[in-house]
Structures are given as C-alpha cells and as structure tokens.
C-alpha cells in the first residue's frame, strides 16, 4: 500500500469523531416534512392536469346532455301517456250537451280513471282562437267538444271497452288514446337517448385514451426515479404504489377542475332558464330540454366520471411503472 501518512484510514475515525461532536445541531435544520419520492409538481404533471381537466369538462358536458335528453324524453312520454281525449262531434238532430254528458258519465264509470273534464263551449272556442281570432260566434259552426280523461298513476283503464261503449252509446263520439303519437314519441326519445349514449361512449373512450397517453408521457420524465428506486432495492409494488398515489391525485385534481366547471355551467344554465320564465323562448326551450336541470342523477354521474378519470390515470401510471421495470430488467 503506498498511501502517505495524511491519508491513513485511521485518520478517518478521528475526523469522524470530531465532526460528530455537535451531534444534534444538524437535526434541527432538517425540514419536518419529507420530500415525496415522486416530485409533487412538474411541468409534465401540470400539463397532465390541464389535459385531464379539459377532457373531463367535455365528458361531463356530454354526460349532462345525455341525462337531460333522457329526462326530457321520459317527461314528454309520461305527460302525453297520462291523458286520453274523447271527441264528441255534433250530429244533426242530437243534443250535443246530452251526448257530452253521456260520454263523461261513461268515462267516470271506467275503473282506473282519476279525473274527467269536459271542455265547455267557451273553452272549446278559446282553443280555436289562435286560428279563427276572437269575436266569432261558434254556435253556427260544427265545432267538436273535447273531454279530457286523466288516468290514475297506478291505474290501467280498459280503453278498448270505453271506446266500444262510446261508439255504441254516444253519437259522434271517438276516443283518442294518443297511441300513434306516443309511439312516435317513444321512438324519437329512444333514438335520442341511444345517439346520446353512443356519443358519450365515444367521448369517454377518447377521454380515457388521451388521459392514458398523457399519463405515459408524464411518466417518461420519471424514468430516472424508477431506476434509482429499483437499484436501491425497492420492490415493484412499492415503486408502482408511489406513482399510483401521485397520479391518482393528479387525475382527481384535473377531473375535479373539469367536472366542477361543467357542473357550474349546468347550474348557470338552470338559473338563466329560470330568468326567462314566462317568455316565449323559455316555453320553446323547456318544451325541448325541460328545465336544464340535470338533477342529482346528473351530478352523481359527473362525480362518478371524475373518480373514473382518477382511477384510469392511476392505473395507467402503474402499468407504465411495470413496463419501465421490465425494460430495466
């Protein structure tokens, strides 16, 4: 061995002892919290949060729209399906009031009917006002009279029997159960919901894929950390756990930002809708979309989407860690 005296290993012990004398001084300067193994904030991480926020916002809008269309379609259907109409046409030689009375009695006697309301001549005239204007005497016109029959919510009236009874016992009476209209409504609503769901599947798939790719890109900058952890003896589960936790939080943060923005938008749309209450525009909009309120169901679905995004982000990071570890070994 050709080292000089100054370098003798024994010197190390002395120096070590000397340096250790102010033993606890350094402890006080150590920060109380430990730095996370995966850096908490990075450019790639911030970019990932932005991507996730945008994708969650778009996904939530689509989800909300589907919930809205589905609810509106159900509302149209049920509103139309809860009523049937009896039409009594004037027949020469017959007293129309008596015929209306007979038809009303038959309807009232039908089980499952919750209410019957014959329209008076004045009400019937008012229904025609938009077409014929005011000030006209309708007594000379053969205007049919309408009787609205409402069904009980749990009732299933035998409309076939009622229709038959009306045809045989009341002159000029016809039962309109809106079946054709309801069928068309049902088909339209079903189509709207299916199209909406299809769009939702596409948007959510695109969202998942872009989140997965963005996560993998963000992970690329973390390869040195994975390598170091691997070589200091960390087990694969430990390394994957560190990244999974970090990316779950990133995913949830991005998802919460995007989801909250979408929820806010639906809330604002609801308030704006309420503002225009009573106007012609509001009538049209509410006829098509209801009240713009996506309800608890819609908000729960958006929260579910946020959680799903977090899980996908965490899963993608875990998968990338295992792939990286496989490539190291």
């Amino acid at each position, binding site marked *: *061995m*050709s*080292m000089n005296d100054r*370098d003798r*290993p024994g010197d*190390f012990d002395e*120096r*070590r002892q000397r*340096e*250790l004398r102010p*033993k606890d001084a*350094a*402890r006080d*300067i*150590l*920060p109380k919290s*430990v*730095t996370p*193994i995966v*850096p908490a904030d990075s450019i790639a991480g911030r970019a990932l949060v932005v991507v996730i926020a945008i994708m969650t916002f778009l996904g939530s809008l689509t989800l909300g729209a589907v919930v809205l269309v589905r609810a509106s379609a159900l509302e149209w259907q049920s509103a139309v399906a809860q009523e049937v109409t009896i039409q009594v046409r004037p027949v020469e030689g017959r007293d129309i009031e008596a015929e209306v009375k007979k038809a009303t009695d038959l309807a009232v006697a039908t089980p499952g009917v919750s209410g019957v309301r014959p329209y008076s001549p004045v009400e019937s005239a008012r229904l025609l006002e938009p077409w014929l204007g005011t000030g006209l005497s309708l007594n000379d016109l053969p205007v049919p009279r309408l009787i609205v029959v409402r069904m009980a919510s749990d009732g299933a009236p035998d409309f076939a029997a009622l229709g038959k009874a009306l045809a045989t016992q009341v002159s000029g009476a016809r039962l309109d159960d809106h079946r054709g209209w309801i069928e068309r409504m049902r088909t339209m609503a079903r189509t709207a919901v299916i199209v909406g769901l299809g769009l939702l599947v596409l948007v959510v798939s695109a969202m998942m894929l872009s989140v997965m790719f963005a996560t993998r890109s963000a992970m690329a900058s973390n390869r*040195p*950390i994975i*390598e*170091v*952890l*691997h*070589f*200091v*003896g*960390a*087990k*694969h*589960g*430990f390394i994957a756990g560190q990244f999974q936790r970090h990316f779950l939080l990133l995913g949830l943060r991005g998802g919460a930002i995007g989801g909250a923005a979408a929820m806010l938008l639906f809330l604002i749309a609801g308030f704006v809708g309420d503002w225009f209450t009573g106007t012609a525009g509001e009538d049209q909009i509410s006829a098509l979309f209801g009240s713009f309120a996506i309800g608890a169901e819609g908000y729960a679905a958006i929260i579910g989407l946020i959680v799903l995004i977090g899980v996908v982000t965490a899963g993608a990071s875990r998968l990338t860690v295992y792939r990286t*570890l496989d490539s*190291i*070994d």
Partner: protein
Amino acid sequence: MVRFENVGLRYGLGPEVLRDLSFRVEPHSFQFLTGPSGAGKTSLLRLLYLSMRPTRGLVTLFGHDLATLSQDALATLRRRIGIVFQDFRLLDHMTTYENVALPLRVLGKDEASYRHEVIELLRWVGLGERMLALPPVLSGGEKQRAAIARAVIAQPQLLLADEPTGNVDPELARRLLRLFMELNKSGTSVVIATHDIALMDLIDARRLVLHEGRLHVYE
C-alpha cells in the same frame, strides 16, 4: 458471496460480450475490475447488480441461484448490494440528506429512526454542511460522495462502484479510495470498476481484468 460459473452474456442475437466467466467474490474481500473500454466491465457490473440475467452459465449471489428467483426476491437481494453509478444517479428534487436516506426509506423505516445514522454518515463523507443542498448545486466530488453514502447507508454486504473516481481529481480519488477501504475494513466486500491504473497502484488488491469478454484474475 458471489459465484460465476461459465457465465456468458450476449445482447439479442449479437456476439457474446462476456465469455466463460468463472470467479468468486469472497466475503470481506477487496478487488478492482478493470480492462479497456468496451471489454465488458459495465455488462459484468450489470450482472452483479442483478440488472440482467446471463444468457448461459450459473450465477449465485449470497447462496441463491439468480435464475430461480422472483422479481421480489431479486429486490430483497438488491438491498444487500450497494451500487455507486458513474453518473451518480441522485434524485434532483431531493436534498442530499434525502438522497442518502432513500434506501432506508424504501425499506419502510420511520425517518426518526435513521436520521442520526444518515447525518453521521454525511459528516463522515464530508457532506455535513451540504445536507440540505440539492444535487444540481453540488460539485462533482460532492455528488460522488453523496452517491457513495447512499450506497453504503443500508450497510450492504457487497459494494459495487462503477468508475467512482472517473470525474474527480487525483487527491479526491485517493480520499474516495480510502473511504472504500474503510468500508471494506468494516466487513463490506468491495468491487471497484476502473481503468485508472494510478488508483489501482495505490493499494495491493486483487484485480479482475476483462479483455475481449474474457476474465483474467490476478490475486
């Protein structure tokens, strides 16, 4: 501790970069691994720190045949090996203290339980005043010492160092060698990969010389 028998290694379908390697690393031993550039030093080190499996032959480490071990078992074995990389591989977002403590942290130990031990070691390697510094502001020599401290903090049975003096001046190289000898005296087997002849001439130690993929041992 380490036993290689007729070990061969090739990358993909290429030629063998290591051929018929048979040697042992005994407990408490000290050796240099040397040879010209491209002779296969890094490949042999990678086999030693379990980053690769040989394409043929038998490698046993601490009595375990590497071919039969699971990933988790390999990770457990890796904890008994300290590695000093040529490029240090310190984590830039962590302080020197946290980098050195990392092997204990991955073992799941509580920070309070190892704080004193890490501070003591940092002072020992002359980094007592640089504990809170981040690696990007450390000098080459300081990074090297931090990397060595990280490699030995968990008291490994085997220490592998890849060109540990490659980036430092001769004075610091001698101090680092002295550090490795201290560790060896405390019971750690040391393998230093280097082609620094002057460094090897400083002490009388076993030399494993790689040449064109074959190993020659000089006791």
